[in-house]
């Protein structure tokens, strides 16, 4: 079934106000909330269950070796990338393909910067200090949550690069369809950003 025959592929449904793709992305994000929600619950469960003292006790701020400065810088980078993502969509909406693509590229670069900082200054640094996931449950949950988040970022970069490169063909065929897809990518991107906004305080600050 080609896309044109299915109703509401591009135009929004009169009742829900959503085209199919956008509705689908919202549902997907709902499931993502449950995925990360389970991991946040795990964090709470482990932290509440940790003993006051002893080797299994929850580590203090210094013991985690997590720098809030690096984490804060990464937070800033991600927030900025969310802004450029919206700007890209706005440009496509206003029919400025070149500018839109530029903002997409900036978003991708910021995302890559986030991942690079994460791996170079955090993971590599900790591996160097012999801090690995099996060191303690704190580092187990730290590596699992930030690792899964980083995978989401990388997934987002792949999608964004697709729309800068081969996916851009769609712009010539159907501008509205292409812009819709950028909007969906943006929804996902803001969600990934939002997950980090929660990860940052619970791992670096609390």
């Amino acid at each position, binding site marked *: 079934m080609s896309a044109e025959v*299915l*109703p*509401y592929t591009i135009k929004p449904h009169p009742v*829900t106000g959503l085209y199919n793709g956008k509705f689908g992305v919202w*549902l997907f994000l709902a499931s*993502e909330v449950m995925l990360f929600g389970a991991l946040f619950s*795990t964090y709470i*469960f482990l932290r509440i269950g940790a003993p006051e003292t002893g*080797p299994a006790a929850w580590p203090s701020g210094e013991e985690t070796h997590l720098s809030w400065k690096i984490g804060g810088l990464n937070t800033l980078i991600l927030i900025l990338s969310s802004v450029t993502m919206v700007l890209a969509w706005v440009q496509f909406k206003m029919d400025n393909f070149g500018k839109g693509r530029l903002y997409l590229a900036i978003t991708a670069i910021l995302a890559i910067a986030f991942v690079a900082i994460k791996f170079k200054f955090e993971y590599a640094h900790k591996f160097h200090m012999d801090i690995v996931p099996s060191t303690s449950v704190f580092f187990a949950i730290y590596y*699992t949550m930030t690792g899964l988040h980083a995978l989401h970022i990388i997934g987002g970069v792949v999608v964004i690069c697709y729309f800068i490169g081969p996916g851009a063909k769609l712009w010539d065929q159907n501008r509205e369809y292409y812009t819709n897809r950028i909007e969906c990518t943006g929804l996902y991107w803001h969600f990934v950003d939002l997950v980090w906004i929660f990860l940052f305080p619970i791992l670096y600050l609390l």
Partner: protein
Amino acid sequence: MSGDHHHEPSFIRKYVFSVDHKVIGVQYGITALSFLFLGFCLMMLMRWQLAYPGEKMPYIGNIFGEAAMPGGVMLPEFYNSLGAMHGTIMIFLGVVPLLVGAFGNYVMPLQIGAPDMAFPKLNMMSYWVYFVGGVVMITSFFVPGGAANSGWTSYPPLSDIATAGQTWWLFGMVCLITSSLLGSVNFIVTIIQLRVEGLTMFRLPFFVWAQLITSFLLLLAFPPLEAAGVLQLMDRLAGTSFFLPEGLVVSGVLQTQISGGGSPLLWQHLFWFLAHPEVYVLILPALGIVAEVIANNTRKPLWGYRAMIYSTIFLGFMSFIVWAHHMFMTGMGTKISAFFATTTMIISIPSVVILTALVISLYQGAIRFTVPMLFALAFLPMFAIGGLTGLPLGLPAADIHLHDTYYVIGHFHYVVAPGTIFAIFAGIYFWYPKVTGRMLNSTLGYIHFFFSFIFINIVFMPMFWQGMAGVSRRLYNQTVYAHGDAVQSLTVMSSWGAWMLGLAQIPFIINFFISRFAGKKVSNNPWHATTLEWLAPSPPPHGNFETVPVVYRGPYEYSVPGASEDFNPQHVTTEACSSVS
């Protein structure tokens, strides 16, 4: 439909990597039925060890090799693998893919008048990810140490330290979860967005409502298991201790290489947060199928259609806050137990409302005892037995005695086997003419039904007595205990019931394949049904409907006074229905 200008797609695009919801539905159906059969075979092997512990298995004992069955006698490890994989295969590869992947995919878009699912490519991907998950699960039988052997629930710490098969199990589960996630997004969007003109939410067949709520359960309940799976993979591969406490002793050896600090309870919470809604994933679409069959074969509207829908919504919501009734014995505390016992009692109310509505629907109906109707009728008392025997398990005091005994096995198998699987059979007999254009043979169908009905009760009924006698569900050989030995005769009876049940499926298998070519050819609407899928040609072409239908009425307008026929299809105008022909 634009299908007219398309050149004919190649064989691969049409039947293998198809994006047509009907082809994908059939793919799901065939694959899942094969897995259902495989899971059943695993169980028949286990039943030999249970009935005749330590004896050489006749005829086929030697084909499983020395690692699993030396001299034809089953090893305990192999028995555990069979148990874990029976549960996993039946639930995640058999029943759910049949109910949602096969029936949902094939019937639901037809019932809402849509040309296809909202995301056809996603639909195809969801099948193939499921397929890969199934292959991973089967392959795990051949890795050193055999397939996963920590039970279908995979409780740590046992599963954390189990053989490599457990890692394969986790990878397989991640595939299956991803597949249901893709499917559920697709289902919800399709049901909300693609209904044809006039088909309001309260004109939807109950089956579609059941699929909608089921999709929400899959969407929101599966991700926590995915998270739990990732955590267990970390425990197994990266040496973390999410589920391992400090001071863990395995086979008398203190585990010093692990950091500790985790908790096995964490897994149980995450697992049952999925697995309780999963129970309703197993039952809601089955109720949907039964509702369709009952309305059609009583020639009456469903009694309490709206009450059934509201109950389903409420059930879906409540299913997220009952999970810890599986964990009363873990020592999580009386207050928490009291909360979950209360919610469990509350959730039984909407289930009873739905079942009661279905029973009342029979009252004063002109019942046609067709094969699908027999399965649907048998479903009602079977599901009732399964549901009512669950109540004692939901009360912590009674659960102390019954927990992890054969009583639990009897309880949930009554829900899933003579319950859900009978509904699946009802659905297959009911919609087979839509898929193939031919009827299944009803003589073979009656034979299949009567023998299945008798033997399935012989399999599961004795389990209630065994359980109340205190026999644990995980025993490899219950005769080594006095209380187990005392009820061994019931185990033997149950085993013979299972093997006979296997024989009773032969008429169905023959019927299923032969009728595809030799069954009686029928019109588009052989059951004189009202819903939209019967408007489409049998089998429906690519794009489903010749013209986009418009809906004028609710789904079950049977025997309307003054109408010319005893059924008013949803797509026919009121004037056309009442004109005396």
